[in-house]
């Protein structure tokens, strides 16, 4: 069975500092990996995805993530955090990239960026 783990419930970062939100996955085939962000009382918003190719993928709002097959990780990064980045971040995986492929989410990581 496929699963996603986000080892940190919360990450605290000072504004302007780099941030990393960790994600590891466990799947039996080639994973398709995603990051979503959730603001309070809002739906999940897509940030970026890894399908194939370059291990470093760039997404919305200056976020990027690095796929590491040997470590089965897909950590989310941003060089300089903003207070407005404070939100709940979910890593997700699917094995099926075509119709009907559901996403399996990690537990979520609360990112708090302080001024």
């Amino acid at each position, binding site marked *: 069975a496929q699963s996603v783990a986000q080892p940190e419930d919360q990450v605290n970062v000072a504004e302007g500092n780099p941030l990393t939100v960790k994600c590891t996955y466990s799947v039996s085939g080639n994973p398709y990996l995603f990051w979503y962000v959730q603001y309070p009382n809002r739906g999940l918003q897509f940030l970026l995805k890894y*399908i194939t190719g370059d291990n470093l993928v760039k997404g919305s709002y200056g976020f990027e993530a690095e796929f590491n097959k040997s470590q089965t990780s897909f950590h989310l990064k941003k060089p300089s955090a903003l207070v407005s980045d404070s939100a709940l971040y979910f890593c997700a995986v699917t094995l099926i990239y075509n119709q009907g492929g559901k996403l399996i989410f990690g537990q979520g990581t609360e990112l708090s960026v302080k001024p």
Partner: protein
Amino acid sequence: AAGVIQSPRHLIKEKRETATLKCYPIPRHDTVYWYQQGPGQDPQFLISFYEKMQSDKGSIPDRFSAQQFSDYHSELNMSSLELGDSALYFCASSFVEGPSGANVLTFGAGSRLTVL
């Protein structure tokens, strides 16, 4: 751009009552998903439909049912409601981008169900 529309946004029900949530996917999206997110929890997959046919089923209770209609909107019906059904219910829709594309789900804002 059009987004995924969910209604109602908030719903309060008593135990053992019935609730129906509606989802209107993005036009031309062919797949609809339902997720349940309890307080402080990650979204849990319930069920999905591709071209109006059930395509996958997750941890959906037998008291719940769902369908996708000819206009592609979907409804989640929940009967004999229990306190534990109180959650945020998300609908998402997607469309395959192509042979090398990925199934990027676009989520609605959610329907918050409170069972008293």
